């Protein structure tokens, strides 16, 4: 008897412990974290239940390869112009290839040697003066790896950063060229979130060489000279609401200084309470900026973001490391701009390859529907087993309840994510957990019909049902694990609850129900069994 007490006590303690973990989920998180007795971490709700944005972004690493080749091309042209005398006639990047036409076959051989010595390219074809290069496998792998790292870093700063990003959001690498972004809750509008995927956010400062009201008027001025020239570009400043051109500026193609030197950018308000974006350069940037402004006092400085002029104030005196952009933007736009400036430019474009966005309203609907289905399923099954198996059905129902507490507790312990398919897994587990009890009880009934004593029937029933129950549940566990391996997103949640549920239901049927029979009728000689 004392051994039975020990077993019952242990089982009760286990159920109570996991039950406590399960119930603790219903206490608000703030209360839990403040209280040393309560677990800080618990069950997490999937994005399909709490609402949120789920994106799988494809990183266009081909662009990174092209960028690398373009960089090489530029380098080649520089070397040609400064030291070597290869007489490069043309060079261009076409997809994954760099094509160079040298002045002579001898020069071409020199170019080839020079390029191969760099170690990052190999010669694909060599016909007289025309050379075609391709990145080596090692270089390509490096470029792609570096590209992924850069994209991840920028996206983490923009979205995943615990302080500056969006609270509780997640940015993780997925496979060789994908990034998973999860932004929970209705914190951010979908179209606004898309702004965070902007490639550029590339800030440039350029001295204004000329200006007019429209692009056409500006171009007309240079018609006689044969255009504005290769080293100049025209950029426009537009009205925010209508996209109408306010003025056109003639600027240098190369920026005097770029946003690479920025250390901070934040929103502030000017005297008229209009939002402005304040920025700060690092020491080096401050120095360059200082020299630039000192040399161009009286000139206008265009602040260009993504090839669009935000403002072009006149430089009145030397400016140090701080400045501000007075665009014509709303407070929201200013905030977005500040984020993009702070996080730097996304070096490689990304593309949404998969999206599972759920609005908070649908999430709430799903929670209540899932809860209703769970309760209804539970009620149907408990009513059925109570009606069919009487007291033993009561044991089965208690075991079922304990099973749910164990399932919830194990999931809370691991901080698992509960999704809507996960709830379906719980409901299915409820249905299947009772199966084990049915198999045992039917065997016990059969043994009773064969004139066995209640005690003998219980023992035989449990023993003979053991392997059947194990077989049945192991096959289900196998499929749940396969689904866990191959499933994505919310479906994975189904695999999680199903596999944990299989284990807990085997435990509750084979251990807990058996224990209840051991307590009553136990070793008492009884006439009949309520089964």
């Amino acid at each position: 008897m004392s051994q039975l007490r020990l077993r019952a006590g242990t089982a009760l303690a286990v159920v109570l412990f996991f039950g406590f973990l399960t119930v603790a989920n219903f206490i608000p998180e703030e209360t839990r974290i403040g209280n040393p007795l309560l677990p800080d971490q618990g069950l997490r709700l999937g994005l399909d239940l709490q609402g949120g944005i789920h994106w799988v972004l494809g990183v266009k690493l081909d662009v990174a390869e092209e960028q690398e080749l373009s960089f090489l091309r530029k380098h080649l042209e520089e070397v040609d112009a400064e030291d070597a005398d290869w007489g490069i006639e043309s060079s261009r990047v076409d997809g994954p290839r760099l094509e160079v036409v040298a002045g002579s076959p001898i020069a071409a051989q020199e170019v080839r040697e020079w390029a191969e010595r760099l170690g990052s390219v190999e010669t694909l074809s060599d016909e007289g003066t025309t050379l075609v290069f391709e990145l080596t496998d090692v270089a390509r792998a490096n470029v792609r790896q570096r590209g992924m790292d850069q994209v991840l870093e920028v996206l983490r700063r923009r979205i995943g950063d615990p302080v500056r990003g969006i609270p509780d959001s997640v940015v993780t690498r997925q496979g060789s060229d994908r990034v998973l972004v999860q932004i929970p809750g209705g914190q951010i509008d979908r179209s606004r979130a898309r702004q965070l995927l902007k490639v550029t956010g590339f800030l440039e400062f350029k001295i204004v060489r000329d200006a007019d009201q429209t692009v056409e008027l500006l171009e007309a001025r240079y018609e006689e000279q044969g255009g504005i020239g290769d080293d100049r570009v025209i950029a426009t400043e537009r009205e925010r609401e209508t996209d109408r051109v306010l003025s056109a500026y003639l600027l240098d193609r190369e920026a005097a200084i770029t946003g690479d030197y920025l250390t901070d950018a934040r929103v502030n308000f000017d005297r008229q309470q209009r939002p402005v974006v304040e920025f700060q350069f690092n020491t080096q940037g401050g120095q360059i900026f200082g020299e630039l402004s000192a040399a161009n006092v009286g000139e206008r400085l265009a602040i260009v973001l993504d090839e669009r002029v935000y403002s072009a104030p006149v430089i009145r005196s030397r400016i140090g490391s701080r400045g501000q952009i007075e665009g014509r933007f709303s407070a929201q736009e200013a905030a977005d701009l500040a984020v993009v400036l702070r996080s730097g430019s996304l070096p490689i474009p990304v593309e949404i390859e998969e999206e599972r966005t759920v609005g908070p309203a649908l999430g709430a609907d799903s929670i209540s529907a899932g809860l209703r289905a769970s309760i209804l399923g539970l009620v149907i099954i408990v009513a059925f087993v109570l009606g069919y198996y009487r007291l033993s059905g009561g044991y089965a129902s208690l075991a079922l309840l304990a099973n749910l507490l164990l399932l919830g507790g194990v999931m809370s312990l691991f901080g698992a994510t509960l999704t809507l398919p996960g709830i379906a897994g719980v409901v299915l587990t409820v249905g299947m957990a009772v199966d084990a009890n049915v198999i045992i009880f039917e065997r016990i009934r059969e043994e009773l019909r064969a004139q066995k004593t209640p005690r003998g029937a219980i023992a035989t029933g449990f023993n003979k049902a053991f392997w059947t129950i194990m077989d049945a549940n192991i096959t289900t566990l196998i499929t749940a694990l396969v689904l866990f391996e191959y499933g994505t997103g919310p479906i994975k949640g189904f695999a999680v609850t199903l596999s944990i549920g299989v284990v807990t239901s085997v435990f509750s049927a084979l251990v807990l129900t058996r224990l209840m029979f051991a307590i009553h009728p136990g070793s008492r000689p009884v006439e009949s069994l309520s089964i």
Partner: protein
Amino acid sequence: MPFEIIPSGTHIDFLGRRRIAFVVSAVLLLAGIAAIPVQGFRLGIDFAGGTEVQLRFAPGADVDEGKVRSVVGACGVNDASVVRYGEAEISEFLIRFREGAVGDDADDETRCPLSDAQRAEFAATDAATGADESAPGTAAIVDRLVAGLRNVMGDLEILRVEYVGPRVGDELRRDGVLALLIACAMIVAYIAFRFSSRFAPGAIAALVHDIGITAGIFVLFGLEFDLRVLAALLAILGYSLNDTIIIYDRIRENMELHTKHDLVDVLNRSVNQTLSRTLLTSITTLGAVLSLLVVGGEVIRPFAVAMAIGIVVGTYSSTFIAAPTLLFLETRFGEGAGRSGPRHPKESGTKGRGSGKAGGKAARARA
């Protein structure tokens, strides 16, 4: 005596009806296969790629399917299906379109009911996210049509946006098939490990039967396959074997007890003896699945439908197919193969065949 769903002593001649059962199963399986060229495998966006947008308009909004469709069309989606959802007084709509449905002609841009500022903003975002300007991606189109609908029909709430690109769709399709095959292989391996070679083919036949007919019913009724249905098919794969295991365990036990009986008799006896638990376990699980089906909501419905079909088919197959398949194999190939039952893991080959009391004890009888 307590209430019994199947009175003890029931003796239904299941084996005698095996020909009817085989015909029924064959018809169901063939109907499913024959329906493939007619109905085709209807793949949901998970596997085929595409976009689904579910929207809820403010109560009292003057909106109908035609209006929504015209705005969606104007914003560049050529071939969208628009379906009204849920109860009549709630204006909920589901807009679906395939990857190729996004038009690329420039006029679409100007027809979409957007303000100039919105147009400029979307164009700027397109450019800044590296999207091709002549063919804005689906992500961009969704923003446009939501804004367009909002402009025309008043405030709305985005309930859900799902988009699966062509590359992801291909991968999910490949992974889905792979998951089914791997799960099948692992279960077959488990059956081979747990049962003797006599019992394994029957269990596998029942398995293929259940998955085949469930999938066939989906094809027949033009229901869509998506990730939720795949999850259900995998769950059925694991679950439908349960009943078969119960019956096979009993057959093995009875074979040892009644060595002198005719095989048909042993099989019939076994199916009848386990009939109540076969039905009861299915009823309880079906109860849970039906509650999902009825009150679990729109999102989980495809899963519940597939699961419910699978449970019913699985119960039928374990009573009408599993045992007769065993008989068929036995009469064809099993003559003189001896009578070894499902193996117990502890039961090694040398010991397992033992007859008499010692062997009987080693091979513990099961429920």
